[in-house]
């Protein structure tokens, strides 16, 4: 087959792992794979580089959103190849690209004790985009999840942080019973406001512990 990203022909890779562990076959070539930068360590909430809680997360701890998130992780840096990837997946709507990180997400989320809750997409936006890029990442990785939130039609893009903080009613509880532990999942972590707005609604409705996971740290 050809690499999903660069279209170069890939030799068929059959390894004993792929046979015995039923590992997901890679849909991108080695070169494209190695152009992504996995994140090790960093901030215990958002994986920003440095030791301990990053400046951005510390800032959040001085607001009413303090203490909402117990821990978290982002898997990859937002380097130019990752920007290209996300552009093609999300904005060019190349839905099959969800397969690129399926094996990685499966590995990270397998055996997860918390209930995985994806950051939802607004209904109108969903009709327009034709798929939810966050749900699809999980679907492709065969990770079970539960929607607990709905989203109102407000674009976060282009607003300053203080304006974003004012957007109280971005997410609403959909009424399903609250599990004790939740892992909030999103594709891209930028300022952390999406995660905190969602976490606030969850905690107000009875969730005790919240972890966050994002594929990419911008």
């Amino acid at each position, binding site marked *: 087959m050809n690499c999903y990203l660069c279209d170069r022909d890939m030799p068929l890779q059959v390894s004993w792992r792929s046979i015995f562990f039923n590992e997901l076959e890679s849909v991108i070539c080695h070169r494209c794979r190695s152009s992504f930068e996995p994140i090790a360590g960093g901030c215990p909430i958002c994986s920003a580089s440095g030791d301990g809680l990053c400046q951005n997360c510390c800032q959040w701890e001085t607001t009413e959103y303090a203490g909402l998130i117990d821990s978290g992780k982002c898997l990859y840096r937002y380097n130019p190849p990752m920007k290209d990837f996300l552009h093609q997946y999300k904005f*060019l709507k190349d839905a099959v690209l969800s397969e690129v990180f399926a094996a990685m997400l499966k590995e990270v989320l397998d055996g997860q004790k918390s209930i995985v809750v994806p950051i939802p997409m607004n209904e109108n936006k969903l009709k327009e985009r034709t798929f939810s890029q966050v749900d699809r990442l999980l679907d492709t990785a065969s990770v079970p999840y539960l929607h607990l939130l709905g989203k109102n039609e407000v674009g976060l893009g282009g607003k300053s942080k203080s304006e974003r903080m004012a957007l109280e009613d971005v997410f609403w509880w959909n009424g399903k019973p609250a599990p004790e532990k939740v892992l909030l999942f999103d594709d891209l972590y930028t300022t952390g406001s999406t995660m905190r707005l969602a976490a606030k609604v969850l905690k107000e409705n009875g969730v005790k512990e919240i972890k966050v996971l994002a594929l990419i740290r911008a």
Partner: protein
Amino acid sequence: MKQIEEFLTGRVWLRNFTPFTKEQIDKAVSDGSVSVSPGITDGRQCARCLEKSTKKIVPFFCAACNAICYYCRHCIKMGRISSCTELITWALPSTISPQSHSFHWNGSLTPLQQRASQEVQASLLQKNDHLVYAVCGAGKTELLFPPIFDALKKGKRVCLAAPRTDVVLELTPRLRNVFPNTTIHSLYGNSPEESGFASLVIATTHQLYRFEDAFDVMIVDEADAFPYSYDPALKRAVIKAKKKDAPIVYVSATPSADLLKQVSHTSRIFQRFHGHPLPVPEFRSLWRYDKDFAKGKIPAKLAAWVDEKIQKDEPFLVFFPTIELIEQAIVLFQKKHPGIQAVHSKDEDRKEKVMKLRERKIPGVLTSTILERGITIPNVQVAVVGADQPIFDAAALIQIAGRAGRSIDYPDGSVIFFHNGIVRQMDKAKKLIVSYNRGGAL
């Protein structure tokens, strides 16, 4: 309505992404002047790029339809087409009044160019396909000016297609100067929006996906170049974009055997416009060069060649078979001279780097095959590393050799094929170049 007609005549466009309002388009559809068709046909073929391989036409669960839809990955960069997207085109006979054209050119054609120019014009009149087989530096663009002008004067719509954006960018200002009264659209990935009805369209072959039944004359420049020569979808796009009986003019310095066989009317120009012979490549062995690079060392013979060019202050291009090798090599070459640059197909600064080389601000450039054609640098010296690698077929090697000696002030130039064993394609390239210098006799 006139604007919609000008925009959509001969074009297939995504219904939801036009420069017009939804109401304007809805009205044009309901009165029958614009027709609508599904983006993916019942036979699971993309109606825009005509792709139908199951690897490229893929299913997904579509939230807009609440069902499985198919979409085309092949032409996705132009805005995704899925089963539930609609394509629109102008449905009525054209009422666009003919433009007046003028021809401003005070250059002159050599007798060989002149003859080829007349032969092309004669083929167009008789609606025959035609091949211009002209060596690198023969001046093939200029000889197309008179036949293009003749076609425009007769009210015909002309397309000049080239496989690469670089070539489109190079041709556009030249043609705009020569035909100052003609509406010319220049189309490539992310090109700025153009308005009005273009009698002359200069486009990458990819952009032809967006045309159907549009052109009376189709000219395919660099008809042997990647991706055109390897991508059957682009060949289908050329056929789809032109009117059924419209002739195609192919222009190439290295036509494939198929093309030579397929097109019966051919003009040959085996001499450069300045009359000097083509530089003949010299073969030099460079055993296990990849091992040297892997060990962090430039192979001695190559290092000596580059040192000499730097010392003589002659600009140079070194072609490499893979991006990986360029990445290894550039670090080592920059230790020799920090000004040396590397370019490849995804390099956004490619144009600037080539410009710097032309202006002699940097000594040389390491490159993939992306620079094999379309660039002219006075006095440039050329080397190929790994000329035995399959990516360098005879056509690519001839194009690369054709970078040297193009300017009338420096009609010679050295062309070295460094190799790890001479292969057939190298021999073939050299034999052909020698034969061109003898006027085409093998």
